[in-house]
């Protein structure tokens, strides 16, 4: 009798947990249609990152730039409590403090050196040439001067027109933060190899 009661409560508990995904059906802002987010530096590929991240918030806690936020329900249950960066609001300065503290290895430990920086794969910057000031002949170059790897990730052409080199661009987003055009003419797409994606 006791065992039967236990089993019934046990099933009730499992069913009660099954109700939690219903919160995912709540209305959400339009921005949640995005499927990819800029993760902190050193993050594993998205699927492995979500497998390993337990949402403890230590990366957000040690970020001296306060650029890492923890997501709420708006990005769906899969991304609940995981860290993300909005580059236009505040971009990563690649100090690598968050990679050193991640307890579960969702962020691979990196050193704040040139080699460490180059092994970051947050994404790739993409220039919208039709709205960029420099491409319209009005010399700007703000993104180049903000880039932590100038001359490598971003090279300048005529009128300081930025050219992104996807081989070196790590996707920190400092160029996107610095862009003086509204909306930003240079954006970080959270995919490292833009060429392989369709």
């Amino acid at each position, binding site marked *: 009798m006791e065992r039967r*009661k*236990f*089993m*019934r*409560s*046990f*099933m*009730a*508990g*499992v*069913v*009660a*947990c*099954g109700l*939690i*995904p219903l*919160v995912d059906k709540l209305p959400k802002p339009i921005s949640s249609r995005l499927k990819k987010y800029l993760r902190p530096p050193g993050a594993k590929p998205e699927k*492995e990152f*979500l*497998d*390993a*991240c*337990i*949402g*403890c*918030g*230590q990366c*957000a*806690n*040690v*970020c*001296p*730039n*306060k650029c890492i*936020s*923890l*997501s*709420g*329900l708006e990005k769906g*249950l*899969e*991304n*609940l*409590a*995981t860290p993300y960066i909005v580059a236009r609001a505040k971009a990563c300065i690649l100090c690598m*403090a968050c990679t*050193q*503290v991640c*307890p*579960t*290895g969702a962020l691979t430990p990196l050193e704040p050196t040139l080699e460490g920086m180059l092994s970051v794969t947050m994404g790739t910057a993409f220039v919208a040439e039709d709205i960029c000031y420099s491409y319209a002949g009005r010399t700007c170059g703000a993104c180049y001067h903000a880039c932590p790897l100038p001359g490598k990730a971003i090279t300048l052409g005529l009128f300081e027109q930025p050219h992104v080199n996807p081989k070196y661009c790590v996707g920190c987003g400092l160029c996107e933060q610095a862009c003086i055009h509204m909306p930003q003419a240079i954006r970080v797409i959270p995919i490292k190899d833009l060429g392989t994606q369709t």
Partner: protein
Amino acid sequence: MRKLDTGKKLLALSIFTRFSVLILLCLLGLWTEYLNLKMGYNNPRLVELSSGPAMRVFYECSDAFFSLFGDPLEAAQTFGGMTWSIRLWGVPFTDPIAFFSILVRDRSLEWGFVLGLILPITLVLLFGRVFCTYICPASLLFFTISRIRRLLGGFFYFPNLSLSKGFAWGILVGGLLLALSFGHGIWILILPYFAMGQTIFHGIAFGTISVAFFSLILFSLFDLCLGQQFTCRYICPTGRFLGWMGSKSLFSVRRDAKKCLPECHICYDVCPLKVDPKIDDSKDCSLCGECLVACPTKCLSIGKVGETWVKLG
């Protein structure tokens, strides 16, 4: 001077330690702000101009505190996390539930993460479910609610439902299944202390209300409307797991059967976790000391479980 008995001392200690944990969680959120100011200004005067005099005081105090451990910026980064997975002076502490969640979903384990289990597990094996009364910041909220219930108990009727222990085990398994299919983030909706940590961190560091806040409200309503400390007893999977692990703990409540009155049941009535010292059942005991205060003959004590522990039934 009147001498305080052990029960009252333990109660006072548990309130003090839980308050300290709560304050620590708030400090961890504030230290994020401190790091940002340290990196950005590194000057108390500029901090005062940008964030006000209160922030300047906090900035200078944190600066003085972290300077004890060397470079303040680096020292401040050895702290972080929530009660779920926390680092203090670089020492990691891991929640067993987080460990299971990772075990189920990821299966690749970091050394620091596994070593963080040692201290919590030792604590459980020695003292039982002490996490629930001495560390869990959410239990401070539920403790307050239980006192409100006791205070208003003369005027209103508060039900005191009971459930089988299977419910919390079901929630643990269901939560692990959810973690497998969605992500580890769902635990912020299930575990009260994690919800508390999220709420505090979101509130202080980002100035937003976390979803976890609403699950905290839900748990508080359960406590108010369904039963005294209902969440701790029947819902919290961590409590159930720690209770199971600590059922053979070294230290627990003991009873002197000679002094105990046969018709008195007050220890069972006041126990927040529905342990029954009357029948010498000390599973789930979290050493909170409520029964020690309530016992009319003072036949209960806390100590090493040994020969004096007479089993009656």
